[in-house]
């Protein structure tokens, strides 16, 4: 249960413009503009090496941008002010934990530095670790460990939550549970920046999808608009043993006469489907390396 409403100090939770960052000769971020509204769940997609991790680490205060404006909850994250860190939660990939710490201890200890931590039992129940509260971190399975990471990320009741591939290594059931939890957090008003490789995850959870490619934003839209935009639908059916398949931007107009004549003759169009390209198709098209 989420009871605390986010304190609105700025209209947008994250405001980034012209951010650049290079590692030696490699330009990891090449002028990124990004705005995340309060309460929004934004999925950040992009192939490995696109600059996702660098961008997120700059927003978290783990890295410094070479150039550009970065405001997160009204703060400059690079200054790592305590008042800033008290308002965010971070779930990184593969983060170490004291091997001898127990699940309950970890949640209690790591949330103690926040001004208004969530109740430990409530957090354990939210992530489904209440049965493993006394277990040592080193004895948890991969999926349980990831859920503990999630627990530690939300234990301080953050206004803004960074989730870096939160469900990697989850079985389908655990993934659904995590999605439910993330959805509930969003409903409670938490702003969430999610990076993921699972298109389905972005499709189910995100209000908006931003695709990074070679250090730049190459797409920024809501997931449905992104998968519908510009791309064509595929119409497919069988008639008189003949397989018909065509691509069209106007499936309704094209199908109307076909359906009308088939119905008039009392025939059934076998296996009739109209499919739209999935987010994954669009993503692959967007991020395809030029040959």
């Amino acid at each position, binding site marked *: 249960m989420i009871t605390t409403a986010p304190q609105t100090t700025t209209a947008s939770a994250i405001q980034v413009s012209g951010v650049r960052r290079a590692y030696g000769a490699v330009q990891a971020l090449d002028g990124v503009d990004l705005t995340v509204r309060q309460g929004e769940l934004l999925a950040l997609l992009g192939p490995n090496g696109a600059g996702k991790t660098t961008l997120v680490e700059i927003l978290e*205060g783990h890295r410094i941008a070479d150039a550009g404006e970065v405001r997160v909850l009204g703060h400059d994250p690079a200054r790592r002010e305590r008042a800033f*860190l008290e308002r965010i939660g971070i779930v*990184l990939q593969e983060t170490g*934990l004291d091997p001898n710490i127990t699940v309950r201890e970890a949640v209690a200890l790591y949330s*103690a*530095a926040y001004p208004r931590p969530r109740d430990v039992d409530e957090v354990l129940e939210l992530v489904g670790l209440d049965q493993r509260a006394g277990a040592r971190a080193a004895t948890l399975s991969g999926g349980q460990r990831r859920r503990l990471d999630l627990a530690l990320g939300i234990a301080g009741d953050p206004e803004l939550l960074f989730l870096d591939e939160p469900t990697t290594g989850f079985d389908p059931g655990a993934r659904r549970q995590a999605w439910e939890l993330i959805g509930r957090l969003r409903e409670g008003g938490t702003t969430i920046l999610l990076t993921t490789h699972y298109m389905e995850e972005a499709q189910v959870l995100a209000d908006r999808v931003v695709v990074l490619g070679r250090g730049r934003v190459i797409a920024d839209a809501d997931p449905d608009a992104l998968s519908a935009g510009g791309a064509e639908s595929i119409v497919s059916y069988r008639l008189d043993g003949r397989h018909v398949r065509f691509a069209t931007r106007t499936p309704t107009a094209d199908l109307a006469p076909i359906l009308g004549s088939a119905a008039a003759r009392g025939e059934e169009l076998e296996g009739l489907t109209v499919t739209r390209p999935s987010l994954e198709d669009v993503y692959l098209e967007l991020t395809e390396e030029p040959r």
Partner: protein
Amino acid sequence: MIATDFNLLGRWIAARVRFTLRSPRALGFTFAFPLVLVTLFGSINSGQNVATPSGGDVPFSQYYTPAIGVFAITLACYTSLIIGIATARETGLLKRVRGTPLPLPVYLGAWLTGAALTGIASVLLLFVVAVPALGVDIYVSKLPEAILTLILGAACLGSLGLALGTLAKTAEQAQPLAQLTFLPISFISGVWFPITDAPSWLTHLADFFPLSHLVNAFSACFVPGGNVEAKDLLSLVIWGAVGMFIAVRRLRAATLS
């Protein structure tokens, strides 16, 4: 309610001590190993006297117990912190902590204090066994000085352990780094046997490092008429400050690039 930093420090120190007590490896190293050394060599050499740097002859265990106490402090504070911090860096534990509002000084302070408490407990255990079993004498009037020396020594070696933990590039490097820095210095500093007739260049070399000063100061508390010298304690303070300075700088830089 915001927990005060003092409150936070207390919670993290308690947690660090708990983690150590739950680790069989840490228990064996910090508590069992020095105890075995003291009882074994104390029994073998019982009845023998050794000359101490401060002048007088004392029974073997009277010198050896505090000297191995210094070794116990080194294991608990120096070796374990080098390995602990290097591992925390490599596994991303440090990055996790730096992503929370927990202040870095509180976090490092908890590592340091937790290690110091473990080390001091290990020294106490040595004496609890050595006094009745090996006839080691304790001089009550010297106890305040002995305790002060132990605390300064633990803080000094702990700070240096933190610093070297940040200098190790990987956790795998940490163990050899700890041993290769400690062992040679320990031989010329009187941890294993008193240094009385060493060439002066060797004594000067040993004097540069804090370990010989810790051995001298702590041993002096267990020799009749022995005195803790201010210069020994000063060396501990200076080295401790240098270590802490390096550790904080390196850790701030390591988690923000």
